[in-house]
C-alpha cells in the first residue's frame, strides 16, 4: 500500500496500528506524538488485561486479544512481561452475586474459564485479602497484566524496523485540506496524509475538531497509585471491588509494588493533576481490602484520561473519507489494543476484517445507537 | 591576576604582597600590626566593621580588606572576628617574632606551652612558645586567639601551630 498514512498519537493505539499497517504492507506510515511515545494513557494504565466482560462482543475482542498478548513477546522480539495472573471481582451483595453469575455463564459459553469462588478460596489466592464482607468472587485465571513500558517499546522498535516514521515532541497544531489531501501541521513541519488516523486517546476530540467532524470521545480524569516494592506473589490477580469505591489493585510485575486505583473520575477535563482527595480515598478502600497495605507507602500517584464515549465502548472505524478513529476505549485500551489495532489495519489495507467492528462504529451515536456499557472499573 | 593560590589552597608571601603590600620591618617592630590574608573578592565586612580606628577599608563589600598600617593599633579584634580566620597579627620584639592567630582546636594550649610551628602549607618549620591565650569566651569573635613567640625570621612564615601533647 503506497498511501501516506499519518497517525496522530504515539500511544499504544497509534504505535500498534502503525505496526499492523506496516506488517500488512503499508509503506508510508508516520506517527505524530505531542510528547514522548506513551505519554498519554498508555504509560498511565493500571496494566490489567481481561476477557471477563459482560457482553459478547467485548468478550470476543478480548479473547482474541489475549491470544495475541500471549504471542506478542515472540512476535515483537521484545519482552512484554505479560502474565496470566487472573482477575478477581469481589462480590459483596446478593445482587452482585447474581449479576456475576450471569456474566460467568455468558463468559463460559464463550469458552472463558471464569468461575464463582468462595471467600475462603479468594483468600487462598490472595492471602492478605480481607474477606470480612465478601460473599464470593468471580475469578478468571486467564486474565492478566503486562508491562506497558516494555510493550510500547516493543511496538516502537518493531515499527521502526519496518520503516514506520515516529516523530515525538510533534504536537499537531492544525489540519487543513489541500488538493484533496489532509495536511497535518506540526512545529516540525507538515505531513500530507491520504489516510489520517486519530489515535489521540483523551485528546481525540481536538483532532476531530480540526477535521471538522463531530466527536464522541471525552477525556475523563482517572487517577492511580503505585506503592513501594513488595515481595512478589501476594496479590497476583487484579482484585476488583465495585462496592469499595470501584477499587482495582494488583502487584506490578516489575517490582511487586501495588498498582491500582478507585473510581473517582472527574470530567470531561484536560486537567491531569493528581489530588489529595484521591490519595485519601484510594488509601481507605485499599486498606479495607488489603489491611496490611496500611503499612505500605504510596510512592507515586498520577492521573490520566479514560477516553470515554457515551456507552463506554470504543469508536473504531472510518469517520469521514480517509479519516479514521481508534479511540474512546473508556479504560480498556491497553488490554484491547492487539485486536483493535489489528482489525483497523485490516480494514484500511484489506478493506475488511473478521473483527466485529460494526459494534464499535464511530457513527452509532449519531444514529442514536448505544451499546450496552462495558464493565468498567477505576 | 593569575590567582595561582586558588589552585594550591595557600598563598605565597610574594603573592600576598602583590594583593596588598605587606608592612615593612620597621612597622613590625613598632608594635603588633594586623595582616589580612584574604586575597579573594568575597562579600564579607566584619573586619572593617569591628576595627576601632578605621584602619581596615574596602570600597565594596566584595573587595579584599586593606589595612592602613599606620592606623592599626594592634587590638586583634579583626583576628578575633574574621569568619575566614584570615587575619593575623605580627610583632617583632626583642629579636623575636610574635604571631597572633586564631585557634579553634582542642586542646587549647596553655600560656608558656611549646608548640610546633606550621607554615601556610602545613609544614613544620620549628617550635615556638605560646605567650598569650585568649579563650573563646573572652574573644569578641567567638574564636580563641593565640600569640606565639618564635624566631624572628619566621614572622611572615608561620600561620598555624600544632599542640605537641604529652610526648
Amino acid at each position, binding site marked *: 500500500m503506497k498511501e501516506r498514512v499519518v497517525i496522530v498519537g504515539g500511544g499504544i493505539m497509534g504505535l500498534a496500528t502503525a505496526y499492523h499497517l506496516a506488517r500488512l504492507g503499508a509503506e508510508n506510515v508516520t506517527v505524530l506524538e505531542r510528547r514522548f511515545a506513551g505519554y498519554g494513557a498508555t504509560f498511565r494504565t493500571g496494566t490489567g488485561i481481561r476477557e471477563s466482560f459482560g457482553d459478547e462482543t467485548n468478550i470476543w475482542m478480548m479473547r482474541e486479544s489475549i491470544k495475541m498478548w500471549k504471542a506478542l513477546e515472540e512476535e515483537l522480539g521484545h519482552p512484554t512481561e505479560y502474565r496470566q495472573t487472573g482477575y478477581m471481582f469481589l462480590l459483596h451483595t446478593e445482587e452482585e452475586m447474581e449479576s456475576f453469575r450471569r456474566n460467568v455463564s455468558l463468559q463460559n459459553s464463550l469458552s472463558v474459564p471464569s468461575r464463582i469462588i468462595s471467600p475462603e478460596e479468594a483468600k487462598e489466592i490472595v*492471602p*492478605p485479602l*480481607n474477606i470480612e464482607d465478601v460473599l464470593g468472587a468471580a475469578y478468571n485465571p486467564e486474565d492478566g497484566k503486562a508491562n506497558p513500558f516494555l510493550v510500547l517499546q516493543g511496538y516502537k522498535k518493531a515499527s521502526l524496523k519496518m520503516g514506520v516514521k515516529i516523530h515525538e515532541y510533534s504536537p499537531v497544531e492544525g489540519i487543513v485540506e489541500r488538493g484533496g489531501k489532509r495536511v497535518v501541521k506540526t512545529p516540525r513541519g507538515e505531513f500530507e496524509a491520504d489516510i489520517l488516523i486519530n489515535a489521540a486517546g483523551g485528546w481525540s476530540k481536538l483532532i476531530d475538531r480540526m477535521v471538522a467532524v463531530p466527536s464522541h470521545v471525552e477525556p475523563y480524569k482517572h487517577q492511580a497509585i503505585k506503592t*513501594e*516494592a*513488595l*515481595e*512478589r506473589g*501476594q496479590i497476583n490477580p487484579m482484585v476488583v471491588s465495585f462496592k469499595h469505591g470501584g477499587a482495582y489493585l494488583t502487584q506490578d510485575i516489575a*517490582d511487586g509494588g501495588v498498582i491500582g486505583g478507585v473510581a473517582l473520575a472527574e470530567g470531561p477535563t484536560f486537567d491531569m*493533576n493528581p489530588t*489529595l482527595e484521591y490519595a*485519601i480515598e484510594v488509601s*481507605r478502600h485499599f*486498606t479495607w481490602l*488489603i*489491611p*496490611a*497495605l*496500611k*503499612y*505500605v507507602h504510596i510512592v507515586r500517584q498520577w492521573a490520566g484520561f479514560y477516553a470515554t464515549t457515551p456507552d463506554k465502548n470504543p469508536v473504531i472505524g472510518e469517520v469521514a473519507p480517509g479519516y479514521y478513529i481508534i479511540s474512546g476505549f473508556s479504560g480498556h485500551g491497553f488490554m484491547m489494543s492487539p485486536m483493535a489495532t489489528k482489525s483497523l489495519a485490516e480494514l484500511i489495507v484489506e478493506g475488511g476484517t473478521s473483527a466485529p467492528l460494526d459494534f464499535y462504529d464511530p457513527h452509532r451515536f449519531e444514529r442514536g445507537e448505544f451499546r450496552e456499557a462495558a464493565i468498567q472499573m477505576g | 591576576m593569575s*590567582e595561582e593560590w*586558588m*589552585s*594550591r*589552597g*595557600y*598563598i605565597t608571601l610574594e603573592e600576598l604582597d602583590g594583593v596588598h603590600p605587606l608592612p615593612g620591618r620597621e612597622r613590625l617592630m613598632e608594635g603588633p600590626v594586623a595582616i589580612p590574608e*584574604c586575597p*579573594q*573578592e*568575597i*562579600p*564579607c*565586612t*566584619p573586619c572593617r*566593621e*569591628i576595627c576601632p580606628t578605621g584602619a581596615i577599608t574596602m570600597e*565594596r*563589600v*566584595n573587595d579584599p580588606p586593606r589595612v592602613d598600617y599606620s592606623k592599626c593599633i594592634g587590638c586583634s579584634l579583626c583576628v578575633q572576628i*574574621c*569568619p*575566614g*580566620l*584570615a587575619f593575623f597579627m605580627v610583632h617583632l620584639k626583642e629579636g623575636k617574632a610574635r604571631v597572633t592567630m586564631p585557634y*579553634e*582546636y*582542642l586542646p*587549647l594550649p596553655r600560656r608558656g606551652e611549646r608548640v610546633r610551628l*606550621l*607554615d*601556610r*602549607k*602545613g609544614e613544620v618549620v620549628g617550635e615556638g612558645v605560646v605567650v598569650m591565650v585568649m579563650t*573563646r569566651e573572652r574573644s569578641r*569573635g*567567638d574564636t*580563641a586567639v593565640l600569640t606565639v613567640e618564635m624566631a624572628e625570621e619566621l614572622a611572615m612564615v608561620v600561620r598555624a601551630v600544632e599542640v605537641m601533647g604529652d610526648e
Partner: protein
Amino acid sequence: MRIERHPILTFRRGRRVKFFFNGREVEAREGETIAMALYAAGIRDLSKSQKFHRPRGLFCAIGKCSSCLLTVDGIPNVRTCIIPVKEGMRVEASEGNPRLADNVPPPKKFMEPETHRTDLLVIGGGPAGLQAAIHAADMGARVTVLDEAPMLGGQLVKQTHKFFGKRQLHAGVRGIKIAEMLIEEVRRRGIEIFSRTSAVGLFPSGEEKVVDAVEAERYLHRFTARAVLVATGAMERYLPFPGADLPGVYGAGAVQTLMNTYGILPGERVLIVGAGNVGLILAYQLMQAGVKVPAVVEALPRVGGYFVHAAKIRRQGVPILTRHTIVRAAGSGRVEQATVAELDERWSVIEGTEKTYDVDVVALSVGLRPSVELLQQAGCSMRFVRELAGLVPLRDRNMQTTVEGIYVAGDASGIEEATTAMLEGTIAGISAGFYLGHGDEKWQERLERARAELEEFRDGPIGREVKKGIERVLI
C-alpha cells in the same frame, strides 16, 4: 563513638534508651534518630540492596534519599535518618522486599486529616523560611512553619563556622548560633511550628492553597493557606564511581549531621571529594572533631570554595589535590580504601597517577541542587539554570513564582548560601505580607533595603554568576 569534647559544640544528650536492630539490643540517647543511633553503635551496614544484595548505609542523613530505609515496628521503608528512636523500638533490615501480613484487622474507623488554616505557610524551617516567617509575622500575618527535621534551623544547625557578610546580617557569628537566634525570634512571635512534618503536596486552587503533610510517619495534616513559601533547601549531589554505594561513602552534609548535630564520630580517616565551600568547611570541622583528613580532591583546576576556607585546612597540613578525582572506593562491606587519580585537560584519568588512601569514610561534596519537587508538583514553571545549580522555579523580584501566592526562597530557588537565603527569605516574607494585605511604607523600605543588601552581597565574582542565572528565570 560519640564525641565527648569539641572546641565549638556542646552536646546535650537525652537519657539512655534501648531498642533492637535485627533482634540485637542497641543503646541510644533520646533525641537521636534511628540511623544516627545505629551509627553511634558502630552499625554502618544498614541493609542489602534490591538486586545485587550490596550493603547499604546512610547517604544524605536528612530524609531525602532512600539509603537508610528500614522496617520499624512492622512498617517497611521508614526513613530512619529522620525518625527519632524510641524505647523498645524494633528495627529490622528486611530480607528482600516486605511481605504483607495475612491477618491484619481491617480498619474500624477513618479519621479526617487534622486541618489547619493560616495566612502564610512556610515549608522549610531553615534560614530562608525562618526569616520569612519572622518578617511576615511582624507585618501581622498569621504564619505557620513546617519542617521535616526534629529541630528547626535547616542546615544552619550543623554549621559550626562563622558566617561571612555584614555583621548586621550575622556575619562573624557561627551558623549554629544564628539558628538559635532565629528559632528564638520565631518562638517569641508565637509562630506555629510543626517539626518532623514533611509537606508532600501543594495544591493551588485559586485564592487558597492546600498543603498536605505527614507528621512523623503517622498523622496527616491538611493546611489551608492564602500564601505558601517553599523554602525546602537543597539536596546533595551524588557521584557515581565503582564502590560509591558502599557504606562509608556519604554526602558531606550527612557527615556534618552525624558529627555536628548528633555528636557522633563519622570515622577515623575521611577522604573528601570536592573543594567547594562545603568540602573545605567539612575538612576543617572533621579536624576540629579530631578526625584525620588525608586529602581533599577536586576535579577542577582550582578550589571552588572561598580561598580562606582552603588556606585554613592547608596550613594545618591537609593537601588539596586539584585536578584529581576519586576513581574507586573498596572494602568488604564498608569503605576501607579510596583511590584517587589525576585528571588531564579532557577530564580523563592519567594512567599511573593513582594513589590509594586507607580511609573509612569518603565524603562527597560535589555540589548541591535545589529541592524543588513541591514547586514542580504545584505547577510552577521551572527552568534548568546552570548558574543556580539545577532546575529552579521562575520568579519575580518578590520571589513569587508563576503561581500567584506561591513564593520561593533560599537554596530551593538556586544554590547560594545561608546569608543570601536569609535575605531572600526576608524579601519573600515581606512580599507575602503585602500579598496578604499587611504592611505599610515602612515595610516597603525594609523590602527595598533587603533587595539592596542582596544586590550588594552578590556584587562579587561569585554573586555575579548567580545574578546571570537569576536573570534567566526572572519574570
